[in-house]
């Protein structure tokens, strides 16, 4: 089994209100100089055939209309 991590985030240009809310909260806590905060999600999985991860991202894990994704293999297999 190959361990992998999929990072999913809203596409550039799509309003991300969660990111905005986090960004607005930071100065109140004394964190200045932070911008372009985007909130996404991460999925970890183990898969027999890592070649299929892209397909399952397209079909289920991400909605390609509104989200970008990156696949990261964790077992050192390139």
């Amino acid at each position, binding site marked *: 089994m190959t361990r992998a991590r999929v990072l999913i985030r*809203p596409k550039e240009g*799509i*309003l991300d*209100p*969660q990111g905005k*809310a986090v960004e607005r909260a930071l100065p109140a806590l004394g964190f200045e100089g932070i911008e372009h905060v985007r909130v996404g999600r991460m999925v970890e999985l183990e898969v027999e055939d890592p070649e299929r991860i892209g397909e399952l991202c397209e079909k*289920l*894990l991400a*909605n390609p*209309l*509104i989200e970008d994704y990156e696949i990261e293999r964790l077992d050192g297999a390139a």
Partner: protein
Amino acid sequence: MRWGVLQFPGSCDERDALKACSLLGEARLVWHEERDLGDVDAVVVPGGFSYGDYLRAGAIARFSAAMEAVAAFAQAGGPVLGICNGFQVLCEAGLLPGALLLNEDLRFHCRQLELIDDDGERLSIPAKHGEGRYYAPEDVLDELEANGQVAYRYAPGQNPNGSARDIAGVRSRAGNVLGLMPHPEHAVDPLTGSTDGLKVFEAVAAAGARA
């Protein structure tokens, strides 16, 4: 006319939808594991939180047995109405264009509001959702408008979620699949203040008659 109303684990508006459909014909619930829609003339995908809305609203419901049957039913021209979570499911399934995103202000809104249909008629219908901001790329929005696929808009100043171009509901290119965020099934009895929701169900029935 016989209506089938889908029921997923996590659906919560299927009973009101069943009641609304029964005012216009016969109606029955369709459990999410059912594959046979042979006895129904129209399908409603109701509101709620199918499969807990895990991952993304509607993303998992799309792969249910019943939704595979609905996709075939829609491709054959059968009328399908998706309400709220049902609209999200139809978008995820690719039966309608676009996607529904978190409300712009991150708040769940629940209130009576006014929609404007294709003919300019105003309908008073409640909306209740946290993830109803309609999104599609600009060129797709232009295309939807040019093809007459924008079925309902929020009346000026009443867009509760930041939807592109005030869009509250869209239909498929062929016209037989309709989805909207507000809840026509909650506006079918004078007891709750408006019966305008029936007009939405009637429009779906008419689309089926034409297909």
